[in-house]
């Protein structure tokens, strides 16, 4: 069951999720961005922004975003590298939710853990005009 984006409020905790990121997924991600994959594949480590991108994908599977949502800000601390094929546990909470001047702002806090240790944490800010649909990011 997915979460209704319009129904959440500050303090709401999203269901925890788990994921693994394979070498093939790392290779494909880096080919798509154009970055040389050898640095990461050679070290057996997930590129940090790739982990973040797939975290966003996991979160939007839980809480589909309506048309009009734009990714407006991103904060992330890469605390420790994530090994390829490691089981990653993800946690997210609605940190802030406000509507002002016709714009709905939502900020999600998230944390990724590997072996119960923090691997990354940060905040994702998304905005959506409440008066008109303009497309999504």
């Amino acid at each position, binding site marked *: 069951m997915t979460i209704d984006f319009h129904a959440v409020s500050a303090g709401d905790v999203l269901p925890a999720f788990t994921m693994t990121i394979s070498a093939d997924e790392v290779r494909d991600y880096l080919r798509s961005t154009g970055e040389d994959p050898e640095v990461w594949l050679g070290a057996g480590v997930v590129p940090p922004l790739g982990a973040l991108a797939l975290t966003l994908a996991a979160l939007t599977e839980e809480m589909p975003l309506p048309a009009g949502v734009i990714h407006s800000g991103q904060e992330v601390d890469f605390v420790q590298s994530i090994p390829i094929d490691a089981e990653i546990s993800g946690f997210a909470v609605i940190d802030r939710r406000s509507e002002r001047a016709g714009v709905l702002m939502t900020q999600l806090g998230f944390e990724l853990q590997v072996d119960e240790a923090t691997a990354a944490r940060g905040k994702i800010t998304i905005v959506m005009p409440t008066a008109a649909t303009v497309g*999504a990011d």
Partner: protein
Amino acid sequence: MAVSFDEPPVVLPVTRLIDQARVDHYAVAARDMNPIHRNTPEALESQFGQPVAHGMLVLALISEAMTNAFGTRWANGGSLQVRFRAPALVPMTVTARATLRSAHEGIATYDVVCEDPRGDVLLSGRASAPFA
């Protein structure tokens, strides 16, 4: 590749064409199939009138620049704080730049920006990484 330095490294610019083929590939690889990024009626009817690149795809150029300078150390103690300022209309050649702002207790902090060919800012913020 984990590297360390006596001084903060220079982070060299990364320039890349973000065309529709790259955006389409990224959509699959990052599992973000939002139609606004592809050649769809939703994209054509949006306020932009054409597909726009994923913000995370543009941000990936900053991560690549930091990786080129710091290696995998970027994944161990690196951090990013950015705001997306303007959409990257596809196709667009984007340049990521990082300018050293400070170096304190082994952490180098850079002002980072992604620009279009005219120098207009697509995203801006800060990136930090351990260098010592």
